[in-house]
């Protein structure tokens, strides 16, 4: 893998990012004619204060000038202030990103791991009851609206049985620290993480299954068997690693969508992350917040696409060394 | 032999085709001059990567050359839409893999009728198609009309492609490895069909192949190509009985049937058209150079520096 390859990919990602940033400007300019009026609704502002604020928000001058100013501010991670909290959007996002990364990250990893294992099991035992069972289960999970699954789990495990808290990330009564705090968070995270894991699982299983089935038709598996390799080793050394390649790329790409993936589920479980922030910004609507979130979500997808490209090239010598 | 008088059917002059690539520009066809007449079969032979397929595609106008020109019956090939279409009535092509060359979603009828429709040929389309199929040995033709390519055998598919080309009454047929993907027992029948077509219609056929046996089977003349150049050319019997270029000799020696000839297995794989050696392009693999024979003849220096121009393109021959 050459420096040229990487720099080409990075450059491509940057171009895409710039496109998204520009797109963002026009998209939100269409919605929001006067952020100042929105931000300070209900407050008396003098004309001079108003002008000052318009200056601060980069709303003076032509569209072109505004655009240049917007680019400059965006480059410094200045996405404006949230209408609802009057805090810088970037600070709000930073504050909330952790909760989302923890929840969705865990769900993403678990769903990938379990999904891949199920996919392997199904493909290796294709046309058996295990295969049919796994396929039916994952298809079912895949076909559910994830928020509906969340509603069902919430109704049953939190409302009816009371095993889990109905929402939030920590118990506000508890000022626990360390391990106990972590335990408290895990307790809160269980249902939303389970929902998301089940929701993401299906895709991995389906893709891993079909990828492994493809790989299993490859001649080099026959050679490996001819060499006297045990079937399990044929699978683990030759079939699975090769079949994993496209799945790993998918994983990286999916991780990019992770940040934005949990809007409805975070809303249902009142999980105070970026998804819930999106949900609330939407209800506001808190446009600077939406705009900032939108940009961050897109950037994360671009970043992980880049990682997927590089990872794929790193894992696959055919891409790496040509 | 030809009824065309001295007017050549196909003239290729100074043809050059290049492909830009990651590892440099590939000079696939690097200055080829070549003519053939009506009613003859010419075999263009060489290893893979020697540029023979590119040459064939350039003759069809499927590949735009960097330099040089292609003339069929004295008409220079132009690349406008209409000119190309007209060119493709007089020149037709047969492909190596008949399975890939037929659209799996078209019936045999449609495959043969396609050219008729494109060129809006007069006459009853059904009759034209039926005649084309039976001329190609698919009889009775009606039985094949509604068949799909996957329902017939490989040999029959190649016949369908020949039929599709022949309904346009071309004067030149370019056949790119026409039998190499077919089973051995079927090849002969297809080659016989080609011979029959030449005799019946005075068409000229350019057969691109790596198989010298095929040339012996059907070709009037043979042209041997190496790294984008024709290195030796002449009547089949002359070239295959007494090859003069060392490359031709080597090619001939590895044909397993010829037990009496000492094998001259060239080292290395098919040469790389992105790195054409200076001097004689064959010299790095040339048995004459390797064995020191060239040095004996005192031409080794020329082999390394001087590009032989006249055919056969070997310094040792003159």
């Amino acid at each position, binding site marked *: 893998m050459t420096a040229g390859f990487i720099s080409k990919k990075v450059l491509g990602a940057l171009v895409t990012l710039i496109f998204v940033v520009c797109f963002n400007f026009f998209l939100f300019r269409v919605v929001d004619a006067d952020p100042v009026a929105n931000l300070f609704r209900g407050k008396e502002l003098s004309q001079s204060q108003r002008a000052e604020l318009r200056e601060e928000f980069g709303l003076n001058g032509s569209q072109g000038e505004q655009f240049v100013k917007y680019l400059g501010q965006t480059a410094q991670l200045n996405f404006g202030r949230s209408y609802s909290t009057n805090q810088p959007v970037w600070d709000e996002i930073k504050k909330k990103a952790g909760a989302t990364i923890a929840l969705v990250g865990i769900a993403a990893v678990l769903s990938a791991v379990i999904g891949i294992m199920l996919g392997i099991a199904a493909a290796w035992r294709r046309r058996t009851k295990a295969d049919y069972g796994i396929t039916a289960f994952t298809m079912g999970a895949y076909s559910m609206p994830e928020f509906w699954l969340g509603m069902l789990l919430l109704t049953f495990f939190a409302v009816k049985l009371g095993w889990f808290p109905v929402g939030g990330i920590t118990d506000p009564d508890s000022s626990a620290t360390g391990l106990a705090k972590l335990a408290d968070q895990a307790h809160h995270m269980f249902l939303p993480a389970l929902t998301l894991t089940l929701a993401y699982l299906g895709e991995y299983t389906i893709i891993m299954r079909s990828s492994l089935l493809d790989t299993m038709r*490859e*001649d*080099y598996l*026959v*050679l*490996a*068997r*001819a*060499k*006297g*390799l045990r079937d399990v080793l044929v699978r683990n050394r*030759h079939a699975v*690693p*090769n079949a994993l*390649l496209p799945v790993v790329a998918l994983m990286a790409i999916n991780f990019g969508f992770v940040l934005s993936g949990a809007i409805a589920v975070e809303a249902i479980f009142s999980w105070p992350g970026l998804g819930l922030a999106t949900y609330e910004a939407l209800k506001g609507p808190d446009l600077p917040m939406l705009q900032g979130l939108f940009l961050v979500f897109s950037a994360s997808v671009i970043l992980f696409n880049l990682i997927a490209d590089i990872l794929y090239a790193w894992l*696959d*010598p*055919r891409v790496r*060394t*040509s | 032999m030809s009824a065309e008088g001295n007017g050549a059917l196909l003239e290729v002059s100074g043809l050059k085709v290049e492909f830009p690539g990651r590892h440099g520009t590939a000079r696939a066809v690097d200055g080829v001059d070549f003519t053939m007449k009506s009613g003859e079969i010419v075999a263009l032979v060489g*290893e*893979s990567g020697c540029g023979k397929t590119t040459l064939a595609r350039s003759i069809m106008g499927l590949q735009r050359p960097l330099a040089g020109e292609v003339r069929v019956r004295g008409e220079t090939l132009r690349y406008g839409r209409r000119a190309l279409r007209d060119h493709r009535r007089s020149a037709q092509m047969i492909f190596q893999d008949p399975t890939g060359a037929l659209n799996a979603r078209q019936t045999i009828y449609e495959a043969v009728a396609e050219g008729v429709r494109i060129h809006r040929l007069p006459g009853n389309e059904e009759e034209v198609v039926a005649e084309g199929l039976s001329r190609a040995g698919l009889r009775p033709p009606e039985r094949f009309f509604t068949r799909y390519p996957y329902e017939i*055998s*490989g*040999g029959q598919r190649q016949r369908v492609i020949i039929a599709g080309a022949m309904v346009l009454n071309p004067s030149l047929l370019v056949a790119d490895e026409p039998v190499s993907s077919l*089973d*051995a*027992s*079927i*090849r*002969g*029948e*297809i*080659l*016989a069909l080609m*011979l029959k077509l030449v005799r019946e219609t005075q068409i000229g056929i350019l057969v691109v192949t*790596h198989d*010298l*046996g*095929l040339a*012996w*089977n*059907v070709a009037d003349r043979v042209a041997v190509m190496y790294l984008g150049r024709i290195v030796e050319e002449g009547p089949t*019997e002359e070239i*295959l*009985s007494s090859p003069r270029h060392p490359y031709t000799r080597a*090619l*001939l020696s*590895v*044909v*397993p*049937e*010829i*037990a009496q000839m000492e*094998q001259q*297995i*060239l*080292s290395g*794989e*098919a040469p790389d058209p992105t790195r054409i050696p200076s001097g004689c392009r064959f010299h790095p693999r040339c048995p004459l150079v390797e064995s020191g024979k060239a040095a004996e003849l005192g031409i080794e220096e020329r082999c390394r520096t001087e590009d032989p121009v006249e055919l056969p393109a070997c310094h040792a021959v003159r």
Partner: protein
Amino acid sequence: MSGQVPLLSVRDLHVTYAAAERPVPAVRGVDIELEVGETLGLAGESGCGKSSLAGALLRLLPGGTEVTGEVLLDGEDVLTMKPGRLRAVRWTDLAIVFQGALHTLNPVQRVGDQIGEAIRLHSKGTSHAKVRERVGELLELVGLPARRARDYPHQLSGGQRQRVLIGLALACEPRLLIADEPTTALDVMVQAQVLRLLEDLQERFGLATIFITHDLSTLASVCRRLAVMYAGRIVEQGPSHDVFAAPTHPYTRALAGAFPVIGDQAFRMAPAGLPGDPPDPRHLPEGCPFHPRCPAAVETCSSVPVELWPAGPGRAAACIHAPGSPVPA
């Protein structure tokens, strides 16, 4: 020939693939004997069952395929071996060089590791350095520099990959080598290189070899004995030179004719071939399966079953025209 048990003895081998509509018989009763150090050429066109035969010898065919008969390797039946024993036999007694080296090597593993895997598998506990050394030896044996062990398959040319596969086949010093279309898809010159390498190695190590290809002319020059397959059966066998020069079976004759002898005026402007197509193994004709295409067919051919009848010294042919045929032509 010798009083000992032959190295390989295949008896009445049948291979039948499972299919949705009806099972597909690919090999229909094949007998082969091979002595130590002997070379056998197996010729036939696509679909004649030659590759299924090769796969059956090491039980490499996909699950659900029915294999009957006997494959005796040193008198031991491969078809009834326990899985553990079978794995031990694979590669140490019998190795295969597959066709199409691009797909036969794992694209994401270094070729050296793929060779090393076979070594380590069959001589447990071999040190890393030893394995590496042996891999280097093998590569040099097949005419590649040892440093190529670090390459991935796609970094090698077609001929080089085929060489790697040959080296890999020799890794555990097998006594029997099956070369399944080892030169198909290679360029003419490279074909010749690989053939010469195989011949050299076979002579050097006294390997018994079964050479499988559709190219009859290649076999004639490489193997001592020759068997021609058609529709799942051997239709003619005997010393290769005899078979090639004077075929008994019309199919062999046609096949030989498809490879013209350059310089022989008989082939000049006279391409020879057979009408019709190879049969569909699911719908084989009655009687001799070749009769619909046979230029020498007579009426009885469509009804009388044929089997290998004697046809000269060390020769047999499945044709009623064979000298030893009990059926009057």
